[in-house]
């Protein structure tokens, strides 16, 4: 689990990729969808290391034998291994054989998320994308999350402005129990790795990124986090993982996610 003695320097983006890849470790043969460069690279890392059974797409409608790098295409076109038009994406996800890592705008203490509007739904202060497939995803297959900016504006007090994906909120259950496919896994942010392992699925800090304190995470979260007696430090990427990430991201798109591409170990920053 720990490799913190290793001196190889790594970026925050590389730490996030390595930590996020863990979410697919025990999934077996499912569709791994990572939205945005870091979740996508995390799925790619999981597929090329500990879970080769994962299926990933080219971002359009084909499954590829090996992960497609984000950014401009490389000289060798990917080997196509299957077809994934939108109709089939829905059919597959309703059956549960998918695990997505998505990047919502807001999350609340129930794990409910929002990508639709800021403010009132009828007359929003800021209109965003719309709910997309979030409602269906959230009640049919496992979901994990990435937030590039862990602040109390993203992890909000109360409920998110418009609940696009279901969470562990009994007030919204239809059948007196959580929706049958609801399975929220990991939350990876620029500060920490969190999960839903607290009492009643409360969000807890699973590990702190090197140089980040629990109080710093709590101060940037709009609701109380469950605190474990001992909070681990997020494992640094190994030299092997860093070499693989470089191969999976030849265009170095990961460098553009966090402003200034900061170091992953902020004790040395």
């Amino acid at each position: 689990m720990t490799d913190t003695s290793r001196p190889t320097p790594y970026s925050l983006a590389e730490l996030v990729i390595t930590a996020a890849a863990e979410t697919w470790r025990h999934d077996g043969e499912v569709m791994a969808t990572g939205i945005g460069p870091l979740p996508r690279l995390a799925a790619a890392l999981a597929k090329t290391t500990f879970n080769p059974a994962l299926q990933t797409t080219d971002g359009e409608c084909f499954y590829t034998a090996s992960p497609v790098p984000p950014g401009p295409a490389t000289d060798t076109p990917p080997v196509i291994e299957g077809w994934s038009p939108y109709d089939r994406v829905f059919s597959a996800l309703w059956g549960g054989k998918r695990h997505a890592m998505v990047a919502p705008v807001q999350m609340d203490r129930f794990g409910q998320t929002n990508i639709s509007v800021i403010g009132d739904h009828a007359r929003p202060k800021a209109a965003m994308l719309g709910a997309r497939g979030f409602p269906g995803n959230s009640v049919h297959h496992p979901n994990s999350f990435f937030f590039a900016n862990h602040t109390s504006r993203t992890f909000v007090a109360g409920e998110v402005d418009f609940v696009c994906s279901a969470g562990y909120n009994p007030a919204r259950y239809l059948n007196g129990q959580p929706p049958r496919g609801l399975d929220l896994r990991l939350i990876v942010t620029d500060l920490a790795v969190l999960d839903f392992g607290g009492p009643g699925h409360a969000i807890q800090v699973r590990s702190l990124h090197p140089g980040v304190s629990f109080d710093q995470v709590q101060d940037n979260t709009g609701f109380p986090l469950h605190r474990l007696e001992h909070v681990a430090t997020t494992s640094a990427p190994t030299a092997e993982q860093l070499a693989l990430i470089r191969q999976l991201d030849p265009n170095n798109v990961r460098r553009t996610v966090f402003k200034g591409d900061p170091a992953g170990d902020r004790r040395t920053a």
Partner: protein
Amino acid sequence: MLDKRMTLDDIVDQLSDGMTIGIGGWATRRKPMALVRALLRSRLKDLTLVSYGGPDVGLLAAAGKLRRLVFAFVSLDHYPLDPHFRAARQEGLDVLELDEGMFHLGLRAAAMRVPFLPTHIGIGTDIIRQPAFRTVRSPYEDGEELVAVPALPLDAALLHVHRADALGNVLTLSPDPFFDELMARAAKRVFVTTEKLVPTPELDMANNARFNLCERALISGVAEAPFGAHPTSATPDYQLDLGHLKTYADSAASPEGWVDYRARFIDVGADHYLDAIGGAGRVAALPKPVY
């Protein structure tokens, strides 16, 4: 002999104020944009638009054509938030917001002539707190409470295809057919624009059967519109035009910007549109976008 050939304006003449219209394609892919521009030039108003939204939504909203929007997202992909759509939404455009898969079920219900289809989608979210939604209890032993997705019947569906004959036999050659077949089955009448109108044998249907969207009995009219999906893509014929999408998005920055966009690309008319965007050669040479 059956002949369903029409012009873009003939198709517009078949539509009327207050109709519920489905527009095919997905975001920046295979949208019947030449027809959307013809709608903007017409007097039609108070439309309810049902769309997996791309620039069709923002254009119709900016031109004041919409009374209501039924959608799950509006996206220009590389410019994820369409400023024309945002402006309309923030000014209070009436909407029914759906999950993408729920959208599909609503069209399927209309196609099946049933009032709803049951699903788990929406449980636990604000989607089902919109007034359009009801729940339904399973009549079987499980007794489960489910979301009843209301049918989304369309007065007309507008689709863009790659090849068609005069009878309305159609082919969509792009790798993803999206939900155009369901749109067609949910609609009272279906009008298609096509990259190329060809004699039936040239459809080579024996080899292209998997690209045949639906049977011709569903199709009411066919208009030839080369590059008719621009600025969205109609792969393999041509890719989306990122530069033009940026021009379109930037035109929301000021009222003058929109007036200018409208004059250059909408009011110019279908015959001069291709010149306005730099000619057929430029569109045919657009690079494949990076996702």
